[in-house]
């Protein structure tokens, strides 16, 4: 992984760490005090998870400052994935609650879609955008490498969780 790209990634990690930690801790505090504002409802567990994702990003930044700086990318990358995965989880909740509301189940009479617009859902837009960008970038690089080594590229799949090369 070249130096410039790594620095870019770490910078992004720092930004994400800040956002996830801030929103997460806010949610925890709101959860304890029993308040909460529009788009940032109180939620102790949800907030703790956001803060945890923030810590993964932060760990990346910390590693970058340490002796094995080149490992930082891994933390930022996985942090981004975690952000997206938990966003999906939240999205499933939203869909389920909407269905429950549609069916007129009790407990859901008061439900509004904004109740489920939580940071876990919308914060993921950033890692998602970043991941798309990384992907197109490494695609391009892959194409560049194609002539040298066709085999590497053949096993690619679109899910991205498989072994794919991010370096070079």
């Amino acid at each position: 992984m070249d130096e410039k790209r790594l620095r870019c990634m770490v910078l992004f990690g720092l930004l994400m760490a800040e956002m996830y930690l801030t929103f997460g801790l806010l949610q925890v505090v709101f959860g304890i005090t029993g308040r909460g504002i529009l788009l940032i409802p109180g939620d102790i567990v949800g907030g703790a998870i956001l803060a945890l994702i923030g810590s993964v990003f932060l760990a990346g930044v910390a590693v970058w400052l340490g002796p094995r700086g080149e490992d930082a990318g891994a933390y930022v990358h996985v942090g981004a994935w975690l952000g997206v995965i938990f966003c999906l989880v939240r999205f499933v909740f939203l869909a389920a609650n909407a269905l429950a509301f549609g069916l007129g189940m009790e407990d859901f009479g008061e439900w509004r879609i904004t109740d489920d617009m939580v940071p876990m859902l919308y914060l993921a837009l950033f890692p998602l955008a970043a991941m798309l960008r990384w992907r197109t970038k490494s695609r391009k690089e892959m194409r560049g490498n194609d002539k040298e080594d066709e085999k590497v590229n053949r096993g690619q799949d679109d899910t991205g969780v498989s072994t794919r090369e991010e370096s070079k």
Partner: protein
Amino acid sequence: MSTDEIGKIKVALAGNPNVGKSVIFNAITGAHQHVGNWPGVTVEKKVGKRRHGEANLEVVDLPGTYSLTAYSLDEVVTRDYIINEKPDVVVQVVDATNLERNLYLTTQLMELGARVVIALTMCDIAEERGDSIDVKKLSHLIETPVVETRAYEGKNVGTLLDEVVREATRKEHHHHTVGYGKELEEKITTVERLLEKDVPLAEKMPLRWSAVKLLEGDEEVTKRIAGSTGEKEILKIQDETPFELIEAEIADKRYEAIDAVLSQCHRRGERKLTMSDMMDRVFTNKWLGIPLFLALIWAAFQITFTAGAPLMELIDMGVGALAGLVTENVPGWFGFLLGDGIIGGVGAVVIFLPNILLLFLMLALLEESGYMARAAFIMDKLMYSLGLHGKSFIPLLMGFGCSVPAVMATRTIDDKKDRFITILVTPFASCGARLPVYIILAGTFFGRNAGNIIFGLYALGVIVAVLSAKLFRSTLFRGSPAPFVMEMPPYRAPKPRAVFRSTWNNGRMYLKKAGTIILAGVVVVWILASFGITPGGEFGMVDYGGEESLTAHIGKFMEPLFKPLGFDWKIAVALIFGFVAKEIVIGSLGVLYGAGEEGLSAALASDPAFNPAVALGLMVFVLLYMPCMAVVATIKKETGSWGWTAFSIAYSTGIAWLLAFAAVKIGILIGIGG
């Protein structure tokens, strides 16, 4: 080749753990063997059939093993099958990403004199890593057919079977051997000569393999030669042999031979940082590992409940409508049986299908992604301090699905004490069958907090399991846990097809159970509730579920036991029938409350015998009390002892009673006992 010459061919699928044996087995036979991305999924042999051309194949899927020296019970299954049953062909499934280690088992199989066909798997991953394997050359060098398979796509299975049939019908069989050096070979020859003298024994055992094993000091083989003519002399040779050195020497020589072959036909690609490496760095990080594990498990549970709720509501509406239709249109007692009994009872169970499917979907994702083995790793330190083994955590996680495979999964734990402790505590992990009870009761009595209560119950199950383990370790099974060494499979994006298949298999089993055991159970409960001794002293139909019915008599008989917990006779009856299958607890309540139409939830809410405290106590009791019939049978089979089985039943029921009592009392204290 004529037909009768081929006949039936016995084929064994052997290989290292987690190389894809069960995937190949499923592709060959069309079976639904459980597949998962962690070592130790298959722990029992499974037979399947397949007709290929002229040949009838009897294929056996075996547990994975690293060598023919068995350490754990699942490995014993494999070794015993290969050595005693002598399959015509052994298909060794070989992971192309780790040829060297996989071929180590091949050298042993060949020494045994087995006809081996090698099926390469994971070629896609090897390719991605940039490795290159010259399959033809490999096959030529080890004089064994090697077939590249892509069984998970259903490809190349035919080619593999062609080779199997060809190998089985080949006249002469070439014995391959690894040379162990002059000194050792002389010893081997001496032992072989001695073994040869005992003709009946020599016919049963491959000579060279037995000789090598004897020189390694293998206890099983030493036992086998007891009473043979050469026994004395062999024992004398054994006395002079430093087993440890010999074993190391032999292993070295085998690896040397493998290296000699691989250096000619295998080139390793340059190692790159893969996504799997990246994930491992984060998920097995000492600071982040445990919090991430908790977060992922929390997400899995929340999805199971939150997403399941509206889907369940949909089915519930359907069941209610059906019951209404039946009671209106079908007259007489048969309408009763259908409406209150079958639809009320079975329906009460079937509506949980969405939750069950989601639960198993989460488990399938956990297994297929490769995170399962990491969970064992992350938890090892905690488990060790409690006197358990990291591997013991896998049965506990599997127990969230069903306790039967979970108890069987303990076979991968080598140490007997570790294993027994794990067997005894695994049923405390709350299985899918207990879930309906929580959903109904927590949903009815705890409203918005239902999710937290249910999560708390799951946590309670694990806590009781872990503390019981500590208790057993410091009383019944003293000692410290055996060494922990485990292979961590690479993370993989779960294949949608595999995940869907695994989920649906479990869902289908749930439905099948609802249509058989649970149906039978609720019909019995309905009959017991409908008949009784009339006031006149005669036997006949009585007031349904009333004071004179047989159920009431049974329940009243058990009532003293349950009275302190605040459970009335209906609950007592439900709990007794819950032994058959835990879903029947809900099924019986559905029958006894005649809940077909209005739904069980409403019926329970309006019963004065129920209140949140009782509901909490009941949930705790159902979580912990004796495992169902199928699990009891499995515990008997796995421990081989009625004593331990009885102990398991008594211990769990005792704990259940105590904790349920505590839960009810606490509930009353905090004012939810009204």
